[in-house]
């Protein structure tokens, strides 16, 4: 199951690079790109893998923080934004934003890979 591996790798590498908080928040763009280059899938599936990897990671991390915090901060931020104080909506948006950026990066990676395989065929 390529897609499962891709999702897992996308999430895992994004988490790992995210530990280096001195790097910008969007550093996972590169890892998601590389995963899509390494695991060759159709563009739609590549997007889906990239998206899911980060969506799951960011949602999960947010839920973990939020549960321990008993929604104190998320409720305030969800009022600030304004999302009517719904921390679930805030968690969802967090996941969507991470997912969207990663999905696009993976799509770029996928389209980059297409070139490599095409070139190889020519050389053969």
């Amino acid at each position, binding site marked *: 199951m390529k897609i499962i591996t891709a999702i897992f790798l996308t999430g895992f590498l994004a*988490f790992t690079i995210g530990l280096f908080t001195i790097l910008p*928040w*969007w550093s996972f763009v590169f890892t998601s790109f590389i995963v899509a280059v390494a695991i060759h899938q159709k563009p739609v599936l590549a997007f889906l893998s990239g998206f899911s990897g980060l969506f799951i990671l960011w949602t999960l991390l947010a839920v973990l923080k939020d549960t321990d915090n008993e929604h104190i901060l998320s409720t305030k931020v969800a009022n600030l934004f304004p999302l009517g104080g719904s921390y679930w909506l805030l968690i969802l948006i967090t996941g969507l934003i991470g997912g*969207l950026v990663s999905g*696009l990066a993976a*799509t770029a990676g996928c*389209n980059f890979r297409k070139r490599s395989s095409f070139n190889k065929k020519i050389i053969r």
Partner: protein
Amino acid sequence: MRIVPFLLSSIATAALVVGLNTQLPIGGSKSPRLGYFLSPQHGFWQNAEATNQSYTENLTIKGLKDKVDVFIDERLVPHIYAENDLDAYYVQGFLHAKFRLWQMEFQTYVAGGRLSEILGEERLPLDRFFRRIGMVYGAEQTMERMNKDPLMKATVDAYANGVNAYIKTLKPEQIPFEYKLLDYKPEQWTPVKTYLFLMFMSYDLTARGATTDLKMTNAKNYLGFESFDKLFPNIQDSLDPIIPKSTVFTQPSFNPIIPKDIDSIYLNKTNNSSETIAPLVPNINNGSNNWAVAGSKTASGKPILCNDPHLGLNLPSLWYEVQINTPTHNTYGASFPGSPAVIIGFNDSIAWGVTNAGRDVIDYYNIMFKDTTMQEYWYNGAWKKSSHRIETIKIKGKPNLEELIAVTDFGPVMYDRSFKNASTEGKYLAIKWTANTAGNGLQTFYQLNRAKNITDYQNAIDTWTCPGQNFVFASKSGDIAIKQQGAFIARWKRQGDFIMPGTDSSYDWQKIIPSIENPMIVNPARGFVSSANQMPTDSTYPYYLGAASNFPLFRGIVINKKLTTMNSITAKDMQKMQTDNYNIFAEMARPILFKYIDEKLLNVNEQRYLSILKKWNLKQDIAEQGATIFNAIWDSLSQEVFQDDFQKAKQPMPWPEDATLLQSLLKDSAYSYADNINTKNKIETIQDDILLAVKKASAYLQQLEKDDKLNWADVKDTRINHLLKIPALSRLHVSIGGGKNCINATTEMHGPSWRMIVHLTDEIEAYGVYPGGQNGNPGSRFYDNFIDSWAAGIYYRLLFLTKQDAEKNEKIKWHITFING
């Protein structure tokens, strides 16, 4: 390669990243960088502190001489045990930063005129105002003076090192929430920031004059001095001063010389006045209550000291509780994040508290420059060279602004051609203020923290300059005392109430009143001392105290009345008194309303409101509708009486005090201002005004009733704002009674910012509460956890522990050890 799809998806990725990495404008402010802010590993989720978070840790940091133990109790109050004083202040700095870093830095951005740097151009007027009034200059002056005292320098330096030690431990994702929201980063803490913060307190407590002097000048010019003096009198009939009436004062050591031309130049004929409003006017209610009762009046035979400073209520709170224990002292109380030591508190031997003196220490001088370059000004019959100060204001996303400020003998020229409004056009106003000449910074509090007896207390406060305070004192040995201390100017009558001529030195300040002549009482026969920002003395005090409108009258009356009759007092009694909502002003004013109203002229609804008012118990408790009705009618009455007299004025005018209207009505049934000058054929009487006021107030009350908001707390609607005034981070609709003339002086955004009661028994019994929480992080459960107790009038027993007790006390939850390394 599928070049086009690759390029498209790459560009889309980049665009999205850039979009999510940019602050976008929303309304007047800017959004955070959304991707960064929401990233769970970088952004705000990192500030969502686990509710069961442990604060226990072992820290190895550089700069300490010895090991320091900090025991943290269940309310997150740290108890610091250090082997020497400097280590204690180092750790206090570290802890302030750990729990309040954003706030303490932000406050110095406000004070130092640097908000444009982080918030953009909209804040420029406020920044320029603070630069021009001399905040940075004053902080530098005070620091320079205090640095000459090696002990004070070492203290403030140790504190700064502690703050910086904490900042150094911060990983990028750990910076406080507000930095992420506004998108900037903490900078190094420097000693001058401590002094900037103290300047802000001076501003908040003494700089109302920067606005009122201008308004009073306008009113004097608009009304003429005679009428002005009637509306803004300098006599308060019902005054119960801090120093009891009939106290005999010694002859003044100095008599200020009155300028010869005062009548023509100053009081009547300065026609071309100037005015403007400070963008951040200190609240008139920045006052406070404090009192101490002697052992003769308490159940235990030991004194009890109480203090509740009334200030703007904010989150994170201005105050941070701390206990500091070293071989030289053992002190507990409320500290300022941004400054070492305890500001209001107690130690093993004594307790102290402060209220604002409210004396006028800020004046304007009208400067005559030779030309617009402001190089020379006319002074004592000759042209004199002025100096210049340039302050650089950084603006987010814009080039820096160089603020040029001319400096005269009187002080910095606050208003000139570049900083003005329609009414200051063409005027140059220099400001003279005791705060921006060098003060003694923290020395007084440093010494109070260590004071053992009344002599130490006196030595500690006698050097205090600004802001002038009423320092209340009580000791275990049984002494009580109060002194109004500060650098107060020996003024001739009405000096500095208006803009003064700046062309010669005869209008200048002549002398600071010697500290020994400042009002003080020790162990008075009546068995208590108190202050509530009223005039410190009656009119027999040999120096001019300043305009009476600077001094709220009524809290002082009710406090003294209560304390006079109370006996066998306990700490519990004091709690009840500090949270008392009785409105003494209403007690005096309500009979007037009923005396002059003809109820037959009212409709059923209006009569119903009056009958609620008649039955009202005069307490501004949460559910009292009488309080709402009284305040609505009184405010309408004040409008009816005075509005017509001011409405044609083009410049901002001061509003006459409630006390003035009340006194006039008590004295005089034919009060001349009752007439509405807009009605040509009729002379309104006070009866007419009250009838109209009741009718107008009733319309408003009916609306409130329709919205089910007639209860006093709903109308008052107290809130505790986040410093950025973001509602989501504030506590709104706090249910609490009180009001401006009550001991519990809680108004909409203002009130008792720290309530403290110290019973000086052998083992000190102390209580305290403030409307906030120890942790400044909005993501912490300790962010606002005291507010409900505070609103309900509930106090916490303050844990004042020896180190041995702290180690085994069940209320101690966490332990931080600091080791040098």
